[in-house]
């Protein structure tokens, strides 16, 4: 299950490194969840793409990429990276916060640069650099769009993800933005970030509510399922669907001016690129890079959709 990409072989590194006499060669380990769903797939795509690019820019550095199916494997991956590859910096998207906090803390204590991506650790102050999306802003942006564009008394349904902290933060942001707007949330349930579940849920909501003005699907996969159910019920045109994350099919619909999908909210998987790039700059001492870097969610509109469309990305 664990795939390891060795950017440059140890042999080549050993021969060329000292002879070229360039800046100190650093080994940067990247540990991210395996591509088990669309967003994680794009995460892998962007991680590999960035490492390819950096290998050309910094041939003296080595990159180790490991993808992991669960927390336990990730802990072993990290141990392997430290023991056999002697990493100088670690970029990690923890599979789960709690189980990974201890192992990552030990790596940080040994003087290794640690960049934590997206999922924060249970203890503060371990990481050198924290790069994350803004879940509150993710929900708030969608809620704000509804508050701005829908009439008072409009009826919306909200599709949540898998019950988790991420999901709770998004929903809190969404509800906070709707507060006082006079928009009524008819129902809110978990679509589990899954197309099939979302399709079923939307079918049942369409049976239950004669009037729905807007659907918030907290992920584009769910939005796809919801759209299929709306089309089946012949109620296209009655409501708008706002998803999230920036899947390329959805961005394409926005780009082509689809009236059912007017906008989308980003939660960029390319944040892994931000994290790796910043780590390389930081670890080589080129510029100070410690602290927190929070990437706000943006609203994708027909005007700016081109900037968010990645032809080769699987997501």
């Amino acid at each position, binding site marked *: 299950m664990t795939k390891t990409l060795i950017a440059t072989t140890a042999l080549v590194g050993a021969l060329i490194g000292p002879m070229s006499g360039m800046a100190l060669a650093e080994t940067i380990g990247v540990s991210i969840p395996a591509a088990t769903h669309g967003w994680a797939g794009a995460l892998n795509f962007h991680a590999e793409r960035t490492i390819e690019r950096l290998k050309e820019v910094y041939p003296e550095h080595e990159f180790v990429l490991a993808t992991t199916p669960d927390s336990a494997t990730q802990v072993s991956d990290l141990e392997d990276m430290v023991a056999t590859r002697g990493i100088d910096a670690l970029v990690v998207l923890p599979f789960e916060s709690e189980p990974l906090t201890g192992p990552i803390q030990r790596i940080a204590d040994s003087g290794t640069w640690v960049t934590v991506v997206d999922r924060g650790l249970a203890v503060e102050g371990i990481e050198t650099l924290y790069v994350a999306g803004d879940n509150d802003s993710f929900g708030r942006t969608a809620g704000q769009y509804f508050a701005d564009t829908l009439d008072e008394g409009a009826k919306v349904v909200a599709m949540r993800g898998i019950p988790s902290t991420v999901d709770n933060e998004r929903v809190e942001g969404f509800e906070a933005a709707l507060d006082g707007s006079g928009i009524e949330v008819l129902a809110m349930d978990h679509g589990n970030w899954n197309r099939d579940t979302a399709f079923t849920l939307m079918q049942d909501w369409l049976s239950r509510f004669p009037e729905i003005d807007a659907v918030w699907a907290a992920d584009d*996969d769910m939005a796809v399922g919801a759209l299929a159910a709306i089309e089946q019920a012949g109620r296209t045109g009655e409501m708008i669907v706002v998803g999230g994350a920036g899947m390329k099919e959805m961005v394409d619909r926005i780009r082509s001016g689809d009236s059912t999908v007017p906008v989308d909210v980003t939660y960029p998987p390319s944040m892994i690129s931000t994290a790796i790039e910043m780590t390389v700059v930081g670890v080589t001492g080129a510029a100070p890079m410690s602290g927190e870097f929070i990437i706000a969610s943006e609203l994708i509109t027909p005007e700016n959709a081109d900037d968010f469309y990645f032809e080769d990305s699987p997501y």
Partner: protein
Amino acid sequence: MTMATTQKSTGRPGRRIDLQVIGPILALIALLLIGMALNSNFLSYANITNVLARSAFIGIIAVGMTFVITAGGLDLSVGSMAAFVAGLMILVMNLLTESMGVTLPVILIGIALALLAGLVAGFINGILITRVGIEAFIVTLGTMGIYRSLITWLADGGTLSLGFEMRELYRPVYYGGIAGISWPIIAFVVVAVLGEIVMRHTAFGRHCAAIGSNEKVARYSSISVLKVRLATYVLLGLLVGFAVVMYVPRLGSASASTGLLWELEAIAAVIIGGTLLKGGFGRVWGTVVGVLILSLIGNILNLTDFVSPYLNGAIQGAVIILAVVLQRKGSTER
């Protein structure tokens, strides 16, 4: 495993007491009444069609699972297998569209491929279990992981989607139908009726029950145990392929999360329907009732705010256990 006391009745289904037979039906009727009381749209044409059509995938698979379980086997790989076959079908159809255009033959080749892939996958499971002699649980646990990884790999971690125009052409297979009855419902009914006939009125069906009841006795009765066992897995694989043929036109996509936990839903439906988990007795129409019960619970929970969505799983679990308790109580041996 704790049902040893019911063993005596196996092979003599005619003597089963009524309550045991009608237990699942009672549960189904109770759910229908609850649904009617909670929401006036429950019995609407659209809702009934939705529920029946979405039951079709698990239902078609569960009919095959009934034979596997009756013959004393188990298959945990069906959900992953469905995802893998769906991914394969979409990939090949997209490839063929480039050379053959958006035409009917592409769909027919896709359907044939899905059925063949399911058949082969079932055959691999069956061969490993019968010829190599590995426990069904282990073999199918292994293939479950393999197919799940393969679909993730095929989709590059994302989602495989059928080309837009091809999807429009193929779409009626899920959304269309005859006389207001959609194709997946018709397919489900046909598979269920054929399954019931095969289980009740053919040598194959009786051999399944005989093997599940007592393998040694079955062998001494000159039943080809290995061949019948193998056939149950091949049949299940073929039905998984058939379910995929109905599934792909729905959303036109497959991803690593396609068919997640379908195997457990199918097994639960089979057991709710009155088939014994340790084999020896199977009831196809009971499986159909089991599938409907599972679908209805989800449907009713979505139609109301009765319980917190966090508790959906708990309600489903409770109803599954209740439905089984209801039929076990009727058992004469207790």
